[in-house]
């Protein structure tokens, strides 16, 4: 993360605006492609007509009730995972941090599975409860990882954080497997699909359950961009600049955990988005968080939307879970970063 000294502040922000408009345009194109693709083919004109309420009942059903919520959810969770990853990379000063690698997603997932196990979904589950439950699981996991990786006199070493994250994640996966064995076949099916990271909340309920989290936490993260800039300079420099490091770091960690948890609750365990998106964003707009956070959000949204569309269409009529597609794209990128880093 070397600051690009060559560019002046003004030139950099002009560049950022340009990049983000381009990304926005890409997202729009992808949105149209996504809404057009699927088992039932519909032309662009029919889609536009339907979106504005002039389609027939069948088109209405396909687009408004099936495709649109799924597409909206994809973009929302993509943006949230990406912003979460960008924050985590900033506060841990670790280019390989991501809510999936650190085991935060798994922690959120475990609580959701536990909830499904205790309260079968059909009877009592409300999608609005899920993000809170996931938040609880993710929060406890994040705290656990933080405590295990923290050593007195040495602080939080990025390497130990990643190792502890891998270990905690393996443990949670094992607990999840033991738990899923006890489920009845219906619930088992649900959990299997969910773990793989299929965007299963394809109803508007889930969009509305997730939306408040997005609307509160993402602007909050954007408004704290300056704080993140200072934190990413390192503990000593930040303290020297007069920042309340511990407090700021915990607040930002909480925001990152909240973003990841609410997304896991509706989208399942999708990893690597929070890793790939911030990296691409930094390459495009530089390391300043006031630019890299929104750019990450756009790239994350784009990435998950593309992955979901691929997963939906590649082996239609059967679906490949979005998380799988994202991992196939994201894991090689992680390995590429790893081969260039100095861990």
């Amino acid at each position, binding site marked *: 993360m070397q600051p690009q000294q060559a560019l002046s502040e003004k030139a950099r922000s002009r560049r950022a605006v340009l990049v983000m408009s381009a990304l926005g345009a890409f997202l729009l194109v992808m949105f149209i492609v996504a809404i057009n693709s699927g088992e039932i083919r519909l032309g662009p004109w029919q889609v536009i007509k339907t979106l504005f309420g002039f389609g027939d009942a069948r088109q209405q059903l396909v687009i408004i009730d099936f495709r649109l919520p799924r597409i909206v959810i994809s973009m929302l969770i993509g943006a949230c995972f990406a912003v979460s990853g960008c924050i985590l990379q900033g506060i841990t000063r670790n280019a390989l941090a991501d809510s999936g690698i650190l085991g935060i997603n798994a922690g959120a997932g475990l609580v959701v599975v536990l909830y499904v196990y205790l309260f079968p979904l059909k009877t009592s589950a409300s999608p609005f409860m899920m993000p809170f439950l996931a938040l609880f699981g993710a929060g406890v996991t994040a705290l656990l990882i933080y405590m295990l990786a923290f050593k007195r006199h040495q602080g939080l070493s990025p390497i130990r954080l990643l190792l502890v994250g891998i270990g905690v994640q393996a*443990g949670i996966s094992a607990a999840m497997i033991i738990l899923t064995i*006890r489920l009845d076949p219906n619930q088992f099916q649900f959990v299997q699909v969910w773990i793989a990271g299929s965007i299963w909340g394809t109803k508007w309920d889930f969009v509305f359950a997730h939306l408040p989290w997005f609307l509160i936490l993402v602007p909050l993260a954007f408004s704290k961009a300056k704080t993140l800039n200072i934190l990413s300079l390192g503990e000593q420099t930040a303290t020297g600049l007069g920042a309340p490091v511990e407090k700021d770091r915990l607040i930002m960690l909480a925001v990152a955990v909240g973003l990841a948890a609410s997304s896991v609750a509706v989208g399942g365990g999708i990893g690597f988005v929070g890793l790939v998106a911030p990296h691409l964003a930094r390459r495009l707009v530089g390391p300043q968080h006031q630019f890299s956070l929104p750019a990450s959000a756009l790239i994350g949204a784009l990435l998950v939307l593309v992955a979901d569309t691929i997963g939906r269409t590649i082996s239609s009529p059967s679906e490949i879970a979005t998380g799988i597609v994202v991992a196939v794209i994201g894991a090689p990128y992680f390995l590429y970063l790893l081969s260039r880093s100095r861990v």
Partner: protein
Amino acid sequence: MSSELEQASSASAPKLKSRPVAASLIIIGGLIALALGMAASIAFGAKQIPLSMVWESLTHFNPDSSEHQIIHELRMPRALAAALVGAGFAVAGAIMQGMTRNPLADSGLLGINAGAAFAMVLCFAFLKGLPFLYLMFFSLAGAAFGAGLVFGISSLARGGLSPVRLALAGAAVSALLVALGEGISIHYNIGQDLAFFYAGGVAGAKWIHIKVVLPWVIAALLGAMALSRSITLLSLGDDIATGLGQRTRLVKIIGMIFVFVLAGAAVSLVGSIGFVGLIIPHLTRFLVGVDYRWVIPCSAILGSLLMVTADLSARLVNPPAETPVGALIAVIGVPFFLYLARKQRREM
């Protein structure tokens, strides 16, 4: 303990800490415990069979008795498979930890198991009905492929093969191969056949599988024993080993081949089970010192013991349902991994 070991390894002359007496005791005691464990594994389960009946079925097999049938067709191959696989994973871990001086080496953590499992997915999807022998060979090739990816990518980076980078690359390669495997299994609708390769379990072991795997595992174990002196020298560091006249590259290549055979055969039999190869060698070195002539046989026996016990408890935790063995072992393995990750100084 750690300071003594440190002295031993920092001394210029390679004077090794070794406890042959403790090791002999472990081998004898371990074998007795293993025999008892396997007997218990044959006797207990969804249907309880008295130990006298187990003995009787061994000496006077009666094909008309259903108990004897259960013992012969289900329980015995299962107990044997557990013992074989435990020894395989444990010795594979011991070889890697010794040769690479990496305390976090384990075939599960380094993507080797994931590679083998991925090869099995490919076989199920594209080469249906392949005989088990060929399946095992594909599994070996997959193990080598996974390891090649992990070691290759890690060695590209500046600073070389650090344990952390290997662990991270292992996690990412595993994630990638599992995701690809899942994608393929969904596309070809073979998820049911494969579920157990990811969870890990010895329930499906049959005599034909044992017959194929047994000679390979035994051969690789004997080979590892023959190589153990060289592994001890490598564990002192490449420089010292070269100075003592070891051809380090050759030893490493042979050692890795044994690792692929052991891990690949084990995965083809029971699927991907991690952490056995991590825990057992550490425990063994703690008990018998760092001389691999003792570490390898003791690891084999303790690994078998762990797998047989874990498989038995997997059946007894929540009968009649079975808990996946891999998950049970992870419950012990993860805290141990975390302990190692926090620890600063380590001795191999």
